[in-house]
């Protein structure tokens, strides 16, 4: 299976994603430059973390107009999987692939720390290797991660099982978040289930040596579902 990792000017987690796919999972990955006009045959597109276009105007606001995004949106409309991590989540929201927006952290501080997450829906192409209710540990590193949407959108996301990951506090309780996200939302899927956006970094949770292997399941989930 082939992953296409989009590099925007200012992306800085593209190499982490490449490492996760090629060195840990032994699958194929290619970098896609933001000015490219095709996906080089990628089955899955990854919009990686970073600070595309310096976060000018709003995080993700300019990146969504990069030439490659026309292809990414078309891929998503065809049902192709798209994984938006951190800045990639912000870009996916700006591009209209996911509802809502990511605003400045409520604390106004950049947060960089491991967080605990509860899997809210294990029946997606990104989470089928987990159990619903399972607690994962992954790092977050962002200044603008406060998921925000209107109440009817939030109700619909929850009612349809599209809230996939929620922040979990001590004792696995909900209601805590590192950024003030509405309803503690850390990750959501699109209505069709083929676009996942999340603020935590699964691609940096691939090795016990650096703190967690809980991200591996997300990539294995995609392999299990997309290759099938």
């Amino acid at each position, binding site marked *: 299976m082939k992953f296409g990792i989009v590099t925007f000017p200012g992306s800085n987690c593209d190499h982490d994603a490449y490492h996760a796919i090629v060195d840990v999972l032994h699958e194929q990955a290619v970098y896609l430059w933001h000015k490219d006009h095709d996906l080089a045959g990628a089955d899955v597109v990854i919009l990686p973390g970073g600070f595309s276009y310096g976060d000018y*105007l*709003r995080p993700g*606001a300019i990146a969504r*107009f990069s030439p490659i995004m026309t292809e990414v949106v078309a891929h998503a409309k065809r049902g192709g999987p798209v994984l938006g991590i951190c800045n990639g989540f912000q870009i996916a*929201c*700006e591009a209209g692939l996911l*509802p*809502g*927006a990511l*605003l*400045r*952290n*409520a*604390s*106004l501080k950049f947060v960089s720390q491991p967080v605990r997450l509860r899997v809210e829906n294990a029946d997606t192409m990104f989470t089928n290797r987990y159990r619903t209710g399972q607690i994962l540990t992954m790092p977050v590193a962002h200044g603008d991660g*406060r998921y*925000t*949407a*209107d109440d009817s959108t939030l109700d619909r996301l929850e009612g349809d099982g599209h809230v996939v990951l929620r922040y979990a506090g001590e004792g696995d309780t909900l209601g805590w978040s590192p950024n*003030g996200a509405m309803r503690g939302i850390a990750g959501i899927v699109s209505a069709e289930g083929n676009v996942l956006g999340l603020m935590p970094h699964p691609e940096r949770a691939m090795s016990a040596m650096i703190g967690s292997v809980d991200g591996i399941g997300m990539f294995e989930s995609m392999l299990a579902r997309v290759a099938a």
Partner: protein
Amino acid sequence: MSRFRVSLHIVPRRGLLDPQGKAVADALHTLGFKSVGDVHVGRHLVLEITAATASDAEKDVRAMCERLLANPVTEDFEIAAVSTA
């Protein structure tokens, strides 16, 4: 066609948590400006554009706000002034 200068404000939508605005309000209170209520921090943009009339210029900028300059989920915009550049 004429050149116009359009200035606009983009502010967080009312009712949404605005931590920057709150931090600024708290600082003003600390300085003794007790009269200050809510504060909202947004962006001020000045665009120079070519259009037939001032109302065309405003219409163009409105479309730019809807497509790029403001996030329709979280922000409101207000065109503050249109003048000849």
